[in-house]
């Protein structure tokens, strides 16, 4: 298993850079990962990251369409906040595994 250091803390990540232990995540770490992705985090970013983390930790499946039901923002805004591949970027920055479709 690979390790990376963010904000002075060493965390466990997989070969694609996704956290393998979501409990190692902090907001300070998120800011540094976001920097690597070229994103400056705002309160809106953190709100959707919290939503995704909560859903993941409850064992629920993460999907783009569930964003519209988040009560935080809609999918279009989600794309603006994390351009290109929002779910992949947001989960990476949010310290949770990359969502895999379960079919």
């Amino acid at each position, binding site marked *: 298993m690979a390790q990376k250091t963010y904000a002075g803390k060493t965390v466990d990540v997989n070969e694609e850079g996704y956290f393998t232990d979501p409990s190692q995540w902090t907001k300070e770490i998120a800011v540094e990962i976001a920097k690597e992705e070229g994103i400056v985090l705002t309160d809106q970013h953190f709100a959707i990251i919290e939503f995704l983390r909560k859903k993941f930790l409850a064992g629920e499946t993460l999907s783009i369409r569930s964003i519209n039901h988040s009560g935080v923002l809609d999918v*279009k805004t989600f794309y603006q906040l994390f351009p290109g591949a929002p779910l992949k970027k947001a989960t990476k920055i949010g310290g949770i595994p990359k969502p895999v479709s379960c079919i």
Partner: protein
Amino acid sequence: MKQLLILGAGTGGTIMANKMRKKLSSDEWSITILDKSKTHYYQPGFLFIPFGYYTRKNITKPVRNFIKGKIDLINNEVEKISPDENKVLLKDGTSLSYDILIIATGTQISPQDTPGLKGELWQKKVFDFYTIEGSEALATFFKNWKGGNLVINIADNPIKCPVAPLEFSFFADEFFTKKGIREKVTINYVTPLSGAFTKPKASKLLGSLLEKKNINLIPDFFLGEVDNSNCKIIDFGGREVLFDCLVTIPLHTGDPAVAKSGLGDEFGFVKIDKNTLQSVIKENVFAIGDAGNTPASKAGSVAHFQADTLEKNIVSYIEKKPLSASFDGHSNCFIETGYEKGILIDFNYTTEPLPGTFPLPVIGPMFLLKESRLNHYGKLFFKWIYWNILLPGRFLPISDKMSMSGKKIDRN
């Protein structure tokens, strides 16, 4: 007399009604099954209709044919479930009480949830093949189509039968080749996934088949809207794909009654334990097949395998014992690849589709994760098995649990 009520007489509901009737004494338990339709559709057959391989009459039978003996069949529609009162309210204002409820209301397409999808081009240039009406309209359209840009697009997951859109693409390649206009038809497979399929090994094999058949793969595309005036689909990030014919697999939702009842997730799928299939909200409620939110394929084989688990767990529940039977996510799909060939895949929650033979090691006779003629005939023969063995709840010598027997594990 106690009441077992089953909502939905599709694959899962019908199998459960027949299984439970054999299991529960008719002196103690009455079984009622309800469906709004009087017709049972062999849903895997929808895929074959656009290409003229089947017509409606090849894939329909009366629901009544499969509900026999001491089972009450009601032709009506559910308005709302009241889990706190153990009651189901019907559209005509009457209600049914239950001691145990099995929700088997399946999933349905929801094109109205994507802006422009059910617009002016609906069933003119935009078609689905997940309903009988859609697949028939597409059959008529394909008969006279002179070619152009064919786009097959999955709006987002989960969808019913996740391999069907791939099979559709393979069939389209064969169909237009045989029609002599393949060079005039560009086939584009536009998917929210990062590849042809979700699981790595199957994705690689299916991806190479797309390439071989000259089908363009456009990945990571989440459908945002359909522009009817310019004939294009646009994703949430602004990417556009032009079409002359759009074959859409729209967003899927559960039954609206589930959403209203408080038993479902945000898409109306019943929240159940992925192993016991019991509602996580109300203990005398269970769900089977597409109606549930288990992270398994929404496919008939899953409903069939789940039925064995559910049968045991409902008996345990009645006897006030722990629900010890556990569904492992087993799914088994024949994938039509065109030209009378097919691939068979077999997997569960934790094991991806692997190569090998099925159901027996070495002798098979089916090959896993490999094209063969026998897999194609297996799929065609499955229709007979479905009507005659599966729905009546008869024994089929395929284990409900996924087996590693015959599978080859790549150590690299």
